[in-house]
């Protein structure tokens, strides 16, 4: 095959490199936003192009949720417990996406040779992380929506929501805190590689347990409180349950949704600040030690 060798015209002609290097704030912001879109793009395309996720990410986890539903019914637990399990199943989508896909992403990007390109692109590295998060959110939202929708219909879950605004706010804050944590984990994974991977693997089930994924976290007493203070999934899920099943007698021993919303705000702020500091630290380490961006290095 022969190339036609028609050299494209410059899309943004400049008369010198110095002029080309001078960007307005608006152009810088626009480029960062475009980088978010660009990085989210492959995840969205992947969702459409590889439907196997329907089986692995929806059907199989839904079986776990269903198992809890049947146990609660067999024990004649209050009906909202079925709803708790369905909500927990839906929120699992985000948690799994954060600790596996999001956390491993930079490590994987390095392996692919993409990290060099991201580091040398004229964008903030935070926009790359945001792009990863938004791409992950897109696929996880779909999965969560399917689990919630099917679970609600199949198991006759009846929600009693009195504060829609707060419920939506808490949900968004939970996502913000979860994906903020994912951004931090992404940097840690890149720094510590397999050790971080093993740690996450070891922590998966304990986090499920202390987050009260399939039961009210308040039942864990002090351990539940600790989880609410530290784990976005635990505090977010508990607040969502309180708001989705208002007035239920099952909510015992945990702070009010308003307080939990404040905890989530703090988690979002801290995790984003930490993620920003860590990615800059990573870049500095990469440049000074020369190992992080080198494939296999």
């Amino acid at each position, binding site marked *: *095959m022969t190339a036609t060798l028609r050299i*494209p015209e410059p899309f943004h002609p400049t008369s010198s*490199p110095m002029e080309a290097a001078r960007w307005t704030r608006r152009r810088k912001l626009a*480029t960062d936003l475009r980088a978010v879109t660009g*990085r989210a793009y492959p995840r969205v*395309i992947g969702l459409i192009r590889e439907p196997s996720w329907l089986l692995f990410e929806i059907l199989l986890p839904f079986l776990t949720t269903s198992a809890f539903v049947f146990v609660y019914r067999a024990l004649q637990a209050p009906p909202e417990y079925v709803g708790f399990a369905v909500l927990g199943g839906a929120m699992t989508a985000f948690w799994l996406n954060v600790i596996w896909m999001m956390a491993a992403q930079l490590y994987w990007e390095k392996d*692919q040779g993409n990290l060099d390109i991201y580091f040398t692109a004229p964008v903030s590295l935070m926009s790359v992380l945001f792009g990863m998060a938004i791409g992950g959110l897109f696929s996880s939202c779909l999965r969560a929506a399917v689990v919630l929708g099917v679970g609600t219909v199949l198991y006759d879950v009846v929600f009693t929501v009195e504060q829609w605004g707060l419920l939506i706010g808490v949900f968004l804050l939970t996502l913000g805190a979860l994906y903020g944590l994912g951004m931090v984990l992404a940097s840690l994974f890149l720094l510590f590689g397999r050790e971080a991977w093993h740690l996450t693997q070891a922590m998966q089930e304990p986090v499920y347990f202390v987050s009260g994924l399939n039961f009210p976290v308040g039942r864990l007493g002090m351990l539940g409180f600790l989880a609410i203070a530290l784990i976005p999934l635990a505090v977010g899920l508990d607040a969502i349950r309180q708001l989705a099943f208002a007035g239920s007698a099952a909510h015992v021993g945990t702070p009010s949704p308003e307080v939990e919303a404040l905890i989530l705000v703090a988690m979002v702020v801290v995790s984003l600040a930490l993620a920003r500091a860590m990615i800059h630290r990573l870049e500095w380490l990469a440049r000074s030690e020369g190992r992080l961006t080198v494939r296999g290095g």
Partner: protein
Amino acid sequence: MSAPAAPATPSSIDDLPPAIEVRGVRRVYKAKPNPVTALDGVDLDVAPGELFGLLGPNGAGKTTLIKILTTLLLPTDGTARVFGFDVARQTTEIRRIMNIVSGGEQSGYGLLQVREQLWMFSQFYGIPVREGWRRVDELIDAVGLQEQRHQKISSLSTGQRQKLNLARGLMNDPWILFLDEPTLGLDVSAARVVRDLVRGWQAAVPGRTILLTSHYMAEVDELCDRLAIVDHGRILALGTPTELKQRVSAGSIFRLVLDALEGGVEPIAALPGVERAVLAADDATAPDGQTVAVNLQLTDDAVLGSVITALAAQDAHIVALQKSEPTLEDVFVELVGRGFGDAPEGDR
């Protein structure tokens, strides 16, 4: 990071600062048991509009220098500037005017199609959405990937993959393009497309600069305005290909292709009148992998007789014999005392 002092817009490329200005750059990697010095006091100037080559064997330090100039690495000592911007402090400015393409690069996401992948990268350079798609199509045409436009990245051949990488590298109209072994592993035809495209792209706008690293001597000889020969982190010689080849002392240079050379080149090199005998590193001399190519430098043509006799004694048969002009490999051997193929270390 504070904004750089913005120089006035020049009226011609003569007014531009050096495209690359490297002073006393050292780079030491921490390693066990001993630190590795990849660059050891490199000084280099590349003018705007030049196509400059770094020629050296694996491990010479070429990639390290490129990583420093592309802001991926900090120098341990010394300073480096790209169009006047300091690589240590003005990374943002440098990233806005440069791009890098490496040989064997596997960047991107296998499930994306060629068009989608390029568009994705266009977003990292801030190209508006529609403009990005238009530019992607232009670049696909330019590199000759029209038929693969909707093919998944994971199914591309090595050559197609490298054309895609080059298209990505040209996406943001860089003022300076770093090409690190861009034709590594490509067949002759794909390598030709890459070289033609690089040359055409550079010629289209005065001031566009290319720094090319390669261990293919013919490629550097053909493409570069000037080059530096690098080994063990030092620049050994610098000049135009013609200037460098003139450094090789007078004598007769032959290229012998043999069916085998089980006794090695040492017995030949030891013959009276043989100034140098090395195995050729250039793949093109022995494309079938069945033959062995040897470069000879003799005091005069008459010495060839004793060489042929010595080869016959080794049961080595001549497949081809060519009297040739000095090559850059001859220059390298003259400077270093060994051929490229003898370099022991991995890439740095």
